[in-house]
């Protein structure tokens, strides 16, 4: 018998005691986080998690990502699953097999416990589906007005097999650029709910862990030059990062870039360019030209890559410009985003 008043997960709210290091915090961790993330490492209640590495492991990879998305819940997902997917994908884009996650929560005083539970359950499901347990974490509570409900930072650890070396500096002129599917779904789903901008759309966020797809691709084409998930800044940011790192140019073909009609329509309405809109379950790959068709087949045979496409190639260009052949046969630059993509006034 613990004689502890249970957490009111229906009507309760986060208060400063939940971050104080006392009984309330221990209860929150035990009744919410440990309960849903449930695994041996968490149950041990240490500040860190000790784990063995798989035999014959190559190199380790670690990635961390902070999530401050607004709104917290959106079509196709929420900040919880997003925080799991985002970090798993960061590990996977380094060629790693994700093994474990750590999660840090910054909660704002007054945040409903029911919403927090919804987020935690979503994280737990995402971690279970991806088979990457959350093994350690941290919780802090800030005063009302000093946060935005919930901020979540997740850190992932994984292992990269020997022989895999993903590095955009290895990209060479002639290499092909591929994407795993339709672009812009996540960004448009989020924007459809933003205050002052709500519009009806059937588009759902594409948030997903894509380490399985990445693993299949690396198994089929170990000579892959680079992988990157086009999150904030979209495809345009990734291509500019690649071109800048490799010191070569990139040309893509507008016709080949997969964008759903609904996403294109929403971007039209808002005066945005889908190339700059965020994604959470897609990847961009660069491989030698001779491997491109095989890689495309492998991607298309995976459920998360069935709409994959070869969209362009690297070229010799010491300026590192990214260009796009438009559907008209003209060319234009695909430059870095300036500031935030903001809707035009007319």
């Amino acid at each position, binding site marked *: 018998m613990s004689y502890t008043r249970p957490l009111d997960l229906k009507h309760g709210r986060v208060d400063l005691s939940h971050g104080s290091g006392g009984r309330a915090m221990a209860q929150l961790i035990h009744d919410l986080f440990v309960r849903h993330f449930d695994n041996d490492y968490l149950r041990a209640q240490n500040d860190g998690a000790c784990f063995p590495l798989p035999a014959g492991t190559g190199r380790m990879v670690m990635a961390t990502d902070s999530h401050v998305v607004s709104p917290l819940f959106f079509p196709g997902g929420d900040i919880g699953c997003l925080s799991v997917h985002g970090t798993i994908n960061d590990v996977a884009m380094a060629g790693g097999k994700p093994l474990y996650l750590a999660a840090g929560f910054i909660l704002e005083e007054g945040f409903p416990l029911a919403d927090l539970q919804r987020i935690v359950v979503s994280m737990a499901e995402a971690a279970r589906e991806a088979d990457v347990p959350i093994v350690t974490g941290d919780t802090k509570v800030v005063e009302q007005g000093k946060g935005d409900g919930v901020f979540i930072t997740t850190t992932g650890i994984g292992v990269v097999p020997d022989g895999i070396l993903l590095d955009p500096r290895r990209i060479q002129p002639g290499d092909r650029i591929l994407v795993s599917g339709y672009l812009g779904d996540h960004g448009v789903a989020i924007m459809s709910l933003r205050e002052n901008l709500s519009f009806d759309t059937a588009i759902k966020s594409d948030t997903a862990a894509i380490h399985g797809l990445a693993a299949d691709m690396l198994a089929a084409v170990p000579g892959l030059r680079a992988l990157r998930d086009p999150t904030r800044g979209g495809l345009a940011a990734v291509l500019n990062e690649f071109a800048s790192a490799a010191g070569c140019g990139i040309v893509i073909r507008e016709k080949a870039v997969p964008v759903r009609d609904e996403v294109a329509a929403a971007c039209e309405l808002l005066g945005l360019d889908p190339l700059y809109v965020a994604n959470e379950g897609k990847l961009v790959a660069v491989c030698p030209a001779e491997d491109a068709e095989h890689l495309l087949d492998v991607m298309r045979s995976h459920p998360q890559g069935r709409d994959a496409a070869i969209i362009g190639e690297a070229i010799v260009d010491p300026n590192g410009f990214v260009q796009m052949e438009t559907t008209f*046969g003209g060319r234009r630059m695909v*430059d870095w985003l300036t500031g935030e993509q903001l809707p035009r006034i007319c």
Partner: protein
Amino acid sequence: MKYIDEFRDGDIARKLAATLATEVQPGRSYRLMEFCGGHTHAISRYGLLDLLPPGVQMIHGPGCPVCVLPIGRIDSAIELARDKGVILCTYADTLRVPASGGLSLMRAKAQGADVRMVYSCDDALRIAREHPDREVVFFGIGFETTTPMTAVVIQQAAALGLTNFSVFCNHVLTPAAMVHIMESEGDPSRVALDGFVGPAHVSTVIGYGPYEGFAQHYRKPVVIAGFEPLDVLQSILMLVRQINEGRAIVENEFTRAVTREGNRKAQARVAEVFELRECFDWRGLGEVPDSALRIRAEYATYDAERRYGMAYRQVPDPKACECAAILRGHKHPRDCKVFGTVCTPDHPIGACMVSSEGACAAHYTYGRFKEIPLRAEVSA
């Protein structure tokens, strides 16, 4: 996406370009100004310049509302938000426009001014209703396109009896600016322009009638064009044909949205709420007579300029900046010494670099690679 794809068909574009190439007379130059920033954006974004024959030259005009907003007006908006403690509501792309002292609305916001980005002036009205204890000012900018909405919210505020809402009106007029460009050299015959691609959205409101006198008086053809790439190409072809035939009339390519009369209801609302200003300072163009609107005395309560006793202070553009010449079509962005070096979209010095519709920003973002030759082409 019906109704969009039809206007982005590459095959039709190539056919149009081929027709254009056969109709352009060898040795003749066709200097066409697209007045509207939306056209500048479309031309750059779709790489349309690559499809034009050598004789056809597009000149980016002053039709970007953000670009023509003078520094003094942004300074006043910042003062309202920072010193008068109002909630200043503004459209997104005004946030980055450079003001005096290295400031912009975005930087003022970071320093604590209550500046809020809105997607429509309705949102500003809503914010005023939600914060009855705060003064809310809507920073109204734009050409004839956005003016009717501002008129409607002022009337709504009046109907609701709101006492904490006002509008800082900076709405400007297209035909007056076109006239100013033709008169800028003192003698219209010295202005090296052969025709105008007329605004799309503006014309949905005012119709194409208001350009008829302009075309006739200055002997310059005007073709009202939609913002889709095929609209722009088609309008260029129509202009080339008029020039070849020595005609100078207003033609309407954008028939799916524009009529001669325009939107009478919208015009009526604008007339009820606004009246002509004798003069308005445009960034790059200077003082332009009869080129802007102010709020009528009947709605004085909702006029932020009267409410806060705002006095306009003219602030000269930065010396190194060639925006004035670029907005008039006298210079190309690449002719400006600070283009792409000191002045970039991340750190705009001049107005043309601020909005994606500005001539310099469009050229920097989409076209600057053409001035730096590539050492090799796409691999086979």
